């Protein structure tokens, strides 16, 4: 069978597609079933948030930062508030710090539950999606009780938090955490040892740690490739150094490890929340911040460890009540940038699994 004339063809995956997480278009050059080249085309969700922030006061920017990455909106609020507080040199009260940590970690668990459900759904197991969202509902109820919102919270503001915790919060939070800890065993039992799951995720999409560092990949994807770097420990912010928790890493950089590491992170977050609830002090929840908040001139790049990676906000102020420049940088941007370099030479089904395991959220990429 001499040279059979074959030709590579271009398949468009997205922008509307059940398994690109958001409106992302991937132009795949395929040779039969093997993906040879990936070219991401983004910008479908560009809302010019950074330009909008230049025309808003600092307090008005907080709801905008929510929309930057709405699955973990608390982290977006946190990083923005941190940047503003560092510019103005504000110290926030103890109680506010503890509440912030509790909210951030709860949000991290909620985001990882969505990851669990969506990844399972992309690989074909349709039921874990419902299980993950059911647990997330319990967490969202906690958020709604505190700040009235289920998705975009507008809660963590420069100076502290906007409202105090209602008195039912702590007992309900404890019972929610206990329930999630138990249900986690179900999740692991359903998929971790399943031969079909292992066949679909083990060894698929290996990400070399040097490639990951070169492209600025961060978060669970970086740690699943064996690089031990977590902003909460290595560039400390808030009060994470008071709690006893571990940075999770996994040695192989394949899809299976990227899936397992997020389940590990849920367990660590549960530990942090329990310790924070135990140590929650009384006091103010907001430092005194004038209504005409005008931080002195300066610039600052604040970063937090989001469930997707590093969420950074660069803020430059000239002493006015509106910032001169706000740049938001999300972890998904770098992971999508790195995807064409390690996601090729695989089947399209593997590409779907890899894309799901990176946990990319498009609003972060497009802003």
């Amino acid at each position, binding site marked *: 069978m001499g040279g059979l004339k074959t030709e590579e063809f271009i398949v468009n995956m997205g922008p509307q*597609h*059940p398994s690109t997480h958001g409106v992302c278009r991937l132009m795949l050059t395929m040779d039969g079933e093997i993906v040879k080249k990936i070219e991401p085309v983004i910008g479908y969700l560009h809302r010019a948030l950074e330009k909008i922030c230049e025309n808003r006061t600092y307090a008005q920017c907080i709801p905008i930062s929510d929309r930057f990455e709405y699955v973990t909106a608390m982290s977006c609020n946190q990083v923005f508030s941190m940047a503003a507080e560092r510019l103005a040199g504000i110290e926030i009260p103890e109680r506010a710090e503890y509440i912030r940590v509790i909210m951030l970690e709860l949000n991290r668990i909620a985001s990882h539950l969505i990851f669990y459900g969506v990844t399972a759904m992309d*690989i*074909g*197991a349709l039921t874990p999606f419902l299980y993950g969202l059911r647990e997330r509902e319990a967490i969202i109820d906690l958020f709604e009780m505190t700040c009235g919102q289920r998705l975009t919270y507008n809660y963590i503001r420069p100076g502290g938090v906007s409202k105090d915790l209602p008195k039912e919060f702590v007992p309900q939070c404890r019972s929610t955490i206990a329930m999630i800890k138990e249900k986690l065993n179900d999740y692991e039992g359903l998929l971790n040892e399943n031969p*079909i799951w292992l066949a679909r995720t083990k060894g698929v999409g290996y990400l070399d740690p040097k490639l990951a560092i070169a492209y600025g990949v961060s978060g669970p994807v970086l740690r699943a490739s064996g690089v031990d770097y977590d902003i909460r420990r290595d560039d400390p912010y808030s009060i994470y150094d008071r709690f006893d928790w571990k940075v999770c890493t996994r040695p192989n950089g394949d899809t299976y490890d990227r899936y397992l590491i997020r389940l590990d992170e849920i367990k660590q977050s549960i530990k942090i929340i329990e310790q924070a609830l135990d140590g929650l002090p009384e006091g103010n929840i907001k430092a005194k911040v004038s209504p005409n908040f005008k931080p002195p001139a300066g610039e600052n790049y604040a970063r937090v460890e989001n469930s997707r990676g590093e969420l950074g906000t660069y803020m430059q102020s000239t002493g006015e009540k509106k910032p001169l420049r706000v740049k938001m940088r999300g972890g998904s941007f770098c992971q999508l940038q790195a995807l064409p370099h390690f996601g090729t030479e695989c089947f399209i089904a593997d590409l779907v699994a890899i894309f799901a395991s990176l946990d990319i959220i498009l609003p972060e990429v497009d802003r």
Partner: protein
Amino acid sequence: MNGIIAFGELHGVFAWLYDLLASTGLSQPWLDVVRYTVLGAMMFVVLALIALFLVWWERKIAGHIQQRFGPMRNGWHGWYQTIADAVKLLQKEDILVDARDKMVFFWAPVLCFVVAFLAYIAIPFGEGLIVADLNIGILYIIAITTFTSISLLMAGWGSNNKYALLGGMRSAAQAVSYEVPLVASILVIILFVGSLSMVDIVNAQSGFMYNWFIFRVPFGPIAFVTYIIAATAEANRTPFDIPEAEQELVAGYNVEYSGMKFAMFFLAEFVNGFTVSAIAVTLFLGGWHGPLDGSFLPSWVWFFLKTFAVVFLLMMFRWTYPRLRVDQLMEFAWKFLVPVTFANLILGAIIKYAGWYW
């Protein structure tokens, strides 16, 4: 049938029908034509109702596995949800892509739908309740169900769409690969029955429950397990539903179909699921026989109970397991199932020759 005469047996109905038709004075060829037409129409109606029921049942089962209720609004627990969906699909616009291959695009759903029902001519629903007891029964059924893969290929090609084509190609590869273990599992049973006729196969399992082929260790259970796996793949159900994988190919081969054409593919899929379960029940689970010698329930009740149990098993598979990748699917078929089924066949042949069975 010895033992207790059950109440509600229906095979007398067919005899009564035949007498009724003969009494109208029609001459022979026309008599048979009318008789088979009437029987075929009855079977079609029964199956259409079963398909509608199965769609509702699948949604309820999926809901309860996922800790939610499934359809609840249309009638008590949503029983006429499927009818409402069918009415909706009937009034949908039939979107036709300009660049399609007109003949192929049109005939693909028709072929899929028709072939799905044709297989039931040789399946016994109960004692004497079979449209035509062909002496090549099971061979006919296997041959007819193979046409489904042709119709999927036609759908993929006729849509003039890369995704659909990929889906069609995958379905053809999958169907062809899983035919071999399917037929090899069935062959073991045929060895012991000595005939291809479905009624003979069921009669070979008469008596108490231990006579059912699934309990005839060692070849019976192995054949049943491999049959169920191969049949799930033939019916394009998860974990083998690559041809229609929503998440990967945006519904694969039926991406360009809308309205009633899509409904035909959809219903045909459920009818196929029922077909493979019915074959499993006939070959391995004793057909219409009850567990005891003689039965207190009519034979068709036993048949439907057992078939719905197997369908339930297939539905549990769908909502529990992730999906295999296409090359893993092929590997599983050729490197695992084919050797196992052939070894089983040889084992069965040795047992039959040596007479080590009851």
